[in-house]
């Protein structure tokens, strides 16, 4: 068990180290999301009067789509240099490869989201940073990272990766997206969602179901 934890941290730190050098994932998520959020702000008549659920939808839609594009970048180098194959040739359980990618992307996404929240707060003159929203972000990011890592691995060798990945990820993620928008829009309205416990329960269950399922299935998608 200690060996697995060491291995997991080695692999995760490897991805973080690579990202610190290239900064591809960060720049993709941050720039694309800022572009989306600011475009909505520029093209709306009055950002101070935008409905809360629309505002929440803008935030999470930009996270989902920029995250999908960033996921492609996350795997692009692995496929180009065949370093994913290098890991498959190493004495590393497939599950650990999956978890290391999941944790790495979770970290990148969480950090990038702080910038997205700050941008939204500036353009729409609200404070998005609250305990509820940050907890929502953690649960959402975990689910998104697991689904994104799984499908990102699948589409890495396909044509039209960006379109295909978005088409695969977005429908599956709808329950998490609904959860995130619901909690965020209630927060923007200065309230707490009526069914907050139900939503959190649903989202955590979603994360657990998919992490277990996708961990089990990961070995089957990387083997030929």
């Amino acid at each position, binding site marked *: 068990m200690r*060996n697995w934890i060491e*291995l997991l941290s*080695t*692999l995760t730190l*490897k991805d973080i*180290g*690579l990202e610190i*050098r*290239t900064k591809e994932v960060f720049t993709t998520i941050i720039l694309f999301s800022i572009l989306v959020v600011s475009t909505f702000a520029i093209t709306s008549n009055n950002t101070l009067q935008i409905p809360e659920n629309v505002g929440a939808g803008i935030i999470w839609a930009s996270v989902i789509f920029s995250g999908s594009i960033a996921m492609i970048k996350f795997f692009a*180098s692995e496929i180009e*240099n*065949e*370093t994913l*194959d*290098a*890991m*498959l*040739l*190493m*004495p*590393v*359980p*497939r599950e650990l490869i999956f978890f290391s990618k999941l944790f790495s992307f979770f970290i990148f996404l969480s950090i990038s989201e702080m910038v997205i929240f700050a941008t939204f707060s500036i353009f729409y003159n609200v404070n998005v940073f609250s305990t509820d929203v940050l907890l929502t972000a953690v649960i959402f990011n975990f689910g998104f990272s697991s689904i994104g890592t799984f499908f990102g691995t699948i589409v890495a060798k396909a044509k039209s990766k960006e379109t295909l990945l978005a088409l695969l990820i977005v429908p599956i993620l709808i329950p998490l997206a609904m959860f995130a928008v619901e909690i965020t829009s209630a927060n923007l309205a200065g309230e707490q969602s009526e069914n907050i416990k139900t939503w959190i329960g649903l989202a955590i269950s979603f994360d657990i179901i998919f992490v277990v399922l996708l961990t089990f299935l990961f*070995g089957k998608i990387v*083997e*030929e």
Partner: protein
Amino acid sequence: MLLEVSNIKKSFQDNLVLENLSLSLDLEESICITGSNGSGKSTLLKICSGLLHPDQGAVNVLEKSFLSQSQGLEIRRRIGVLLHSNMLYPTYTVRQNLYLFAKILGIIEYKPRVGEIVERLGLDDSMDKEVQKLSNGNKRKVGLCKSLLNDPDLLIIDEPESNLDAESLKTIAGILTDRATSGKGNLFTSHSVEFSALCSTKSFKISSGSLVLL
């Protein structure tokens, strides 16, 4: 027996690449596989290294099978693989790449081990250079270093001579010969008759998906 391949068959999109192919490799053997482009040499090596599974037939390495997750892990601890691609992180230095793979392989005293292999292949001066800035020949040598880190019982290499000068070829041939002499095994492909003659104990040619002893 280090490697036992029994009647394997492999197709890609209905294109039959390997058919009824069998091969055995024992301790102290160094086997060279030759064949024309597209004959299936690389496919055979990928199957022997566990990266691909055959459609039919069986592959046993160190008397274990890749079909079992736990046995697959044990096999991978004891083999070294260098395929057509060097499989290195281009933005990491040579040192960072080799230390990373050594840690993953579970080598405890990895720094001296890396130093020893790098010295033998003449890469001392390149240790702190990013892999993407190296010449193709040096990248290949780094790939070879990676495959030798755990002093594997079975070394699988696809065209070890590619991009290398005559001096480096002699060094690699020496490594393969020393390994065979000390009780290990090597399986490699080559287009070079001279290189094969230098360091193989047996040669086969892939023809119509099967092996023919030369």
